[in-house]
């Protein structure tokens, strides 16, 4: 394994050096909501505006050419990062949410019909739930859900039974943003395909944290966001299999997505631009490429291994706190997310007191209300870890949680 020096990594992230209050340094444990950005990403966007700003795919002048080259190079980097050798299968979107909405609105509207079965899961983020609910309402689809076991895993036996209903689509999160569960995506996709379904993986939490290959998964569509993987907000991606993308109607109409426009009709552009209407956030797309460069230079396996150690240590230490329960603690495979409840103390109070100690955690339902209903709790607190977090920060979290318990005892 490459040597991993977290102190050196932290120096790449200017924000990690700030104080939340005078003398109270920031301890950022909310990377699952959004990750912090290294200087290389900030510089790539800054540099673009200083030296290369022009509209892409339109002009023949120096800046237009330069901007187009940088934008398309970024697409190639992001595609390669997820194991695709065809950049045209990588569509830039605003975020994972828009990527899923694109599939629902374009593929779903064209290829799903009344009474078709769509399989989702109980652990979905609202972004992989609501677009399908909206489409189901419009089309009269039947939504079925793979339940979550008490341990925090998807119930594969029920999935097998649901597959007998010949679903047209199976969509699920690669990794839960609440439980941290890493679902057996490859096996689930293989089963879904045998049943004749098209597959959608919400990879918003997996792609940032471990090596994910669309080839290896053999997935049809995969959605993820730049801002959770050290990149800027406002840009994300949809991977789609070329044969499927080719058959799909455009999602939004406008400039750049057309080949020819007449007064009463148009012909769409080829992939991937068919799905990229209007001037895109070019600087952010370039920042996305820089984020991928940064992660690749360290290596996703190295990052995953480091995070695994951190989260194991965090869970062991957090469990010593009286009344603390970890959601999905026993899941078969889990990533760097620890959602927890403290007996008799509301997550908002936990998060607020931690904030006074400089610690940023998330409190609430984390955009997964049905999952919280499943575990019969209104909300939880969530600490999440990334490559720049340290063992010292975990110790600080644990000491601060002890203070919370003491205040309310």
């Amino acid at each position, binding site marked *: 394994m490459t040597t991993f020096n977290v102190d050196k990594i932290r120096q790449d992230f200017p924000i990690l050096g700030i104080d939340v209050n005078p003398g109270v340094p920031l301890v950022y444990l909310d990377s699952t909501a959004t990750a912090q950005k290294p200087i290389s990403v900030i510089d790539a966007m800054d540099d673009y505006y200083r030296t290369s700003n022009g509209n892409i795919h339109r002009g023949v002048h120096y800046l237009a050419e330069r901007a187009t080259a940088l934008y398309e190079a970024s697409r190639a980097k992001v595609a390669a990062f997820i194991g695709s050798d065809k950049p045209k299968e990588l569509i830039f979107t605003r975020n994972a949410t828009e990527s899923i909405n694109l599939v629902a609105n374009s593929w779903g509207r064209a290829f799903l019909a009344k009474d078709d079965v769509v399989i989702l899961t109980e652990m979905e983020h609202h972004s992989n739930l609501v677009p399908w609910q909206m489409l189901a309402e419009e089309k009269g689809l039947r939504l079925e859900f793979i339940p979550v076991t008490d341990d925090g895993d998807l119930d594969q036996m029920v999935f097998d039974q649901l597959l007998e209903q010949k679903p047209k689509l199976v969509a699920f999160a690669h990794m839960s943003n609440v439980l941290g569960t890493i679902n057996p995506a490859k096996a689930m996709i293989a089963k879904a395909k045998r049943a004749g379904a098209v597959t959608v993986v919400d990879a918003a939490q997996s792609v940032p944290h471990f090596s994910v290959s669309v080839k290896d998964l053999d997935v049809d569509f995969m959605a993820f966001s730049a801002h959770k993987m050290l990149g800027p907000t406002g840009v994300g991606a949809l991977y789609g299999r070329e044969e499927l993308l080719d058959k799909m109607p455009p999602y939004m109409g406008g400039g750049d997505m057309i080949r020819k426009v007449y007064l009463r009709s148009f012909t769409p552009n080829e992939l991937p631009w068919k799905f990229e209407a209007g001037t895109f956030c070019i600087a952010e797309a370039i920042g996305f490429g820089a984020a991928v460069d940064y992660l690749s230079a360290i290596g996703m396996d190295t990052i995953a291994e480091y995070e695994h150690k951190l989260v194991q240590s965090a869970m062991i230490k957090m469990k010593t706190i009286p009344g603390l329960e970890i959601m999905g603690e026993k899941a078969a495979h889990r990533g760097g997310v620890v959602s927890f409840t403290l007996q008799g103390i*509301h997550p*908002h*109070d936990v998060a*607020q007191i931690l904030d006074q100690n400089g610690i940023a955690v998330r409190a*609430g*339902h984390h955009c997964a209300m049905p999952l919280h209903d499943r575990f019969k709790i209104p*909300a939880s607190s969530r600490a999440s870890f990334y490559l720049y977090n340290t063992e010292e920060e975990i110790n600080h979290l644990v000491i601060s949680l002890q203070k919370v318990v003491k205040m*309310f005892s």
Partner: protein
Amino acid sequence: MDDLYREVIIEHYKNPGYRGSLDPNDITFEDENPLCGDHIKIDLRIGDNGKVTEAAFDGHGCAISQASADLLLESVIGKHVDEIKHLTKTDVMDLLGIELGPVRLKCALLPLKILKAGVYGLGEATDDLLEEGQS
């Protein structure tokens, strides 16, 4: 910020004087903050003179919302319902005695919204109710 969890708030959260429910009651209303799941129900008994004789709240939520409910009900005992209609955000902030950011402010003000929606006999607790009453 250090004073956010003043002794009085923790005390009212842990040992509320007005937790429970009143059945029968003259006014009852419940609502929740869907963002955090805080849920509060308030029951009131009103005397012939139009003044609050008994009050109780039930529900679950953070220390700020629950302490706010307890302090608020303590303050309305003996008050005429018309006076309750004129309670505002400022009154709640005075009771709590703390400064709150926009997110936690919603927790603190939930009980007042519910109380006023009940007193006005409205179908829902809206943010308009946090300003001066228009009876």
